[in-house]
């Protein structure tokens, strides 16, 4: 099935600069509907109102981390199948293992480039 480039994507990071960078990269890739949140709890609120085709989230946020957000999504009957890509500076093996155990769809380590973002989104959503 072709990827719907108009599907809403939610970008979550407590650094506004990083939110801006990821959003810009997504637009360059052709995605047209991008929502932003600087707190995981806000992201969860948005997800209960709108159906997102993909969530791209940082890990290291407080008080609710990206891992907490992932676990909350996966434990919610309505949200549990939402593709979730972690984009984070946490690069240790135990982090990858924990994210995978929590149900992450893919994992991007910072710093990353546009090509990596595209490759990982393709791995999750399909070719676009």
């Amino acid at each position: 099935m072709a990827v719907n480039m108009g599907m809403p994507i939610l970008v979550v990071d407590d650094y506004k600069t990083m939110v801006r960078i990821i959003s810009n990269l997504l637009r360059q890739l052709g995605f047209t509907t991008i929502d932003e949140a600087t707190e995981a709890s806000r992201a969860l609120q948005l997800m209960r109102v709108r159906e997102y085709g993909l969530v791209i989230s940082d890990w290291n946020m407080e008080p609710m981390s990206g891992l907490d957000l992932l676990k909350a999504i996966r434990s919610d009957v309505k949200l549990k199948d939402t593709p979730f890509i972690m984009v984070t500076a946490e690069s240790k093996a135990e982090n990858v293992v924990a994210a995978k155990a929590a149900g992450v769809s893919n994992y991007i380590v910072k710093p990353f480039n546009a090509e990596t973002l595209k490759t990982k989104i393709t791995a999750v959503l399909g070719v676009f």
Partner: protein
Amino acid sequence: MEQGRNSSEIVCEDPVSAHPELFTELAELGAYIRKVRSDLASIGPVSSKQSQIKKATTQLDQVVEATERAANQIMDACDTLQAVASDVGGDSAQKINGAVTTIYEACGFQDLTGQRIVIVNNTLSYVEGKLEELVDMLGVTPEEHGEVQPVKAELDDADLLNGPALAHEANDQSAIDRLLSELG
């Protein structure tokens, strides 16, 4: 000397009774010093590679390196844009060059942040030196630093919040991808 008393029978006042507040102060001072020694011991060896201060200064050094690399990448990209501008010419070239100039100016952040970080690192090193002197002065022994924290059998979520790893400890994207595919 009291009148009529033998000179060998000098009666001294009981110092505790005479100056109870002095001994209270000394007892409190002693308790404070014991607490400081205990706190210093809990910090761990001040000047070892594992000390919190060493970790902090190492992280800050890596901040400086990372921002320098990023600034250079930005300026390299600007060079490319300027080359394009010269091909394009006209008003568009002017606008591109204007924007590139603004970017170059903004890249000066790296120099300023680097300088501030050097100040912070120097301050931390100074504090570390003073702590070492205090440790020596109070005679805190290596044994009092306590045993190395045992490695936890299971990590909880808080243990996973470490931020960017040091360059020699970090896994790059290809290592992460391999691990993910191994995990299925």
